[in-house]
């Protein structure tokens, strides 16, 4: 079976600064993969390239056998790649339900959009259930807490049934309880999705990760289970050993 996501020989340069250098990266269907590395390692840049926000200088990104290079962002989403951002963006003036409905309807044609929403589709109901915001369904998203906003964002991804989910620091700024709930939510989503998570939080990583990829200064440093990565002296030197005890 071929990989779901294949990145080959990727180079990204921002006005002279090499954000990513000769990166090869492979993700199999069904994986839950963590992407870690110190600041400036190129984690978010990699996600930006996959989703079409940043154009690479060279190299290829193939998703399910399809080349994503040069595609517009919304077409990449329609191909089945969904992402969240570090700062959660939900639509404050719309209700929680309408936020989910908006996300669910991304394949609707213009004529379908001209109708009002009546009732709740099964997909939306199940996403609402997954993220546990049923009680707040009719409240405007503006009243949600930071954690709830992130869950709503994840719900908005899930309801689109993407083949690959990219989560950019989903637990940043969250309380301990919120982190745990996010981790559980992520694991339940990972049961039937391929998920790539960028994360800084080491406790979160130890608790919820199985395979980890470490980036350092735009290059791939190593890849393996949490234990293998923790044992790798290079990783300890550039990242873990310096700042945090593993």
């Amino acid at each position, binding site marked *: 079976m071929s990989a779901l996501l294949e990145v080959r020989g990727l180079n990204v340069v921002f006005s002279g600064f090499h954000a990513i250098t000769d990166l090869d990266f492979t993700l199999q269907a069904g994986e839950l993969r963590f992407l870690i590395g110190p600041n400036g390692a190129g984690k978010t840049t990699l996600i930006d390239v996959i989703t079409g926000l940043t154009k690479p200088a060279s190299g290829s990104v193939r998703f399910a056998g399809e080349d994503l290079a040069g595609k517009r962002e*919304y077409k990449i989403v329609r191909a089945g790649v969904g992402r969240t*951002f570090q700062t959660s963006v939900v*639509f404050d003036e719309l209700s929680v339900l309408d936020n989910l409905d*908006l*996300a669910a309807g991304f394949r609707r044609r213009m004529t379908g959009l001209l109708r009002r929403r009546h009732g709740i589709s099964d997909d939306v109901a199940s996403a609402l259930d997954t993220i546990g915001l049923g009680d707040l369904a009719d409240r405007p998203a503006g009243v949600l807490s930071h954690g709830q906003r992130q869950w709503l964002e994840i719900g908005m991804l899930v309801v689109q049934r993407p083949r690959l989910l990219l989560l950019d620091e989903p637990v940043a700024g969250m309380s301990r309880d919120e982190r745990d709930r996010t981790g559980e939510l992520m694991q339940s989503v990972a049961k039937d999705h391929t998920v790539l998570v960028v994360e800084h939080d080491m406790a979160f990583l130890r608790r919820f990760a199985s395979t980890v990829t470490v980036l350092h200064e735009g290059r791939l440093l190593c890849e393996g289970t949490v234990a293998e990565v923790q044992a790798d002296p290079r990783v300890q030197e550039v990242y873990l050993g310096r700042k945090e005890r593993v």
Partner: protein
Amino acid sequence: MLSPFRLDLLGKYLCYAIVAVGISLAWGRGGMLTLGQGVFFGLGGYAMGMHLKLQDGELPDFMSWSGVEELPLLWKPFANPVFALAMVIVLPVLVATLLGLLVFRQRVRGAYFAVLSQALAAAFVILLIGQQGLTGGTNGLTNFQYFFGLDLYEDADRRILYLVTALILGASYLSVRQLVRSRYGQLLVAIRDGEDRVRFLGYDPALVKTVAFAVSAGLAGIAGALFVPLVGLLSPANLGIVASLELLVGVAIGGRYSLAGAVAGALLFNYAKTIFSEQWPDGWLYVQGALFVAVMVWAPRGLAGLSHQFRDALSSRRKVEVQA
């Protein structure tokens, strides 16, 4: 009953209110600050004016004054009423669609879009004035006798015309209200508040915005077409930068987020303009400026948004009390 003179003015306000419905959609919901609605108002108006000038089968008066002896090719199809009526909507919608796809794809937005739309209004006026023989130049189109069988000098016939205008305003209001409440309306608000996020939900924001912009242009075109028989005159002064701004100011004062606020704002603003200009001709500009500044500073959501603002103020005060 209003005197015929007042009724004339009311008809004009109704036209501006139709434009306001469109501006409320594009600006209030879609976040597109369009300072060039006069262009679309003008396209619809000239399409109608050209037809009305051709109704008696003679060469339009201004052409003979500028030495044009034969009807220009551009004018010929406008003798056909169906063609002219279609152009009233097609021309502004087409221009807005092309412009929208071009600039929204390039992610031109905010102040840049506003400046661009204003430049368009300036360019349109220069074009109209430059083509004296084709457009009537600075004087524009005047002297209309008939409007689809209605005699524009008969009070009874004019009353029918106001009624038609009022009905069209009502229909525009209801259609746009439906649009705003649909999923499309929610999508438009979502794009206003987070265009990039919407892009990553798999929608093409450029397309969604273009539709709203084109609808607002179409409404402005219809309003322009009704303005011509109601006012009996259409000249570049009715659709230049200043005129385009005035179309917007009424909406800002009434409240751009509320469709009803936008309509009421346009009606009140233009009524105030008439009253003030009659009493104190030089003062109006100052009043208009002061009014606009006052609304922007104290009621950024407009008059219709005052209750919303009040509620916000109350709830934030309550929050402070709870914390204290």
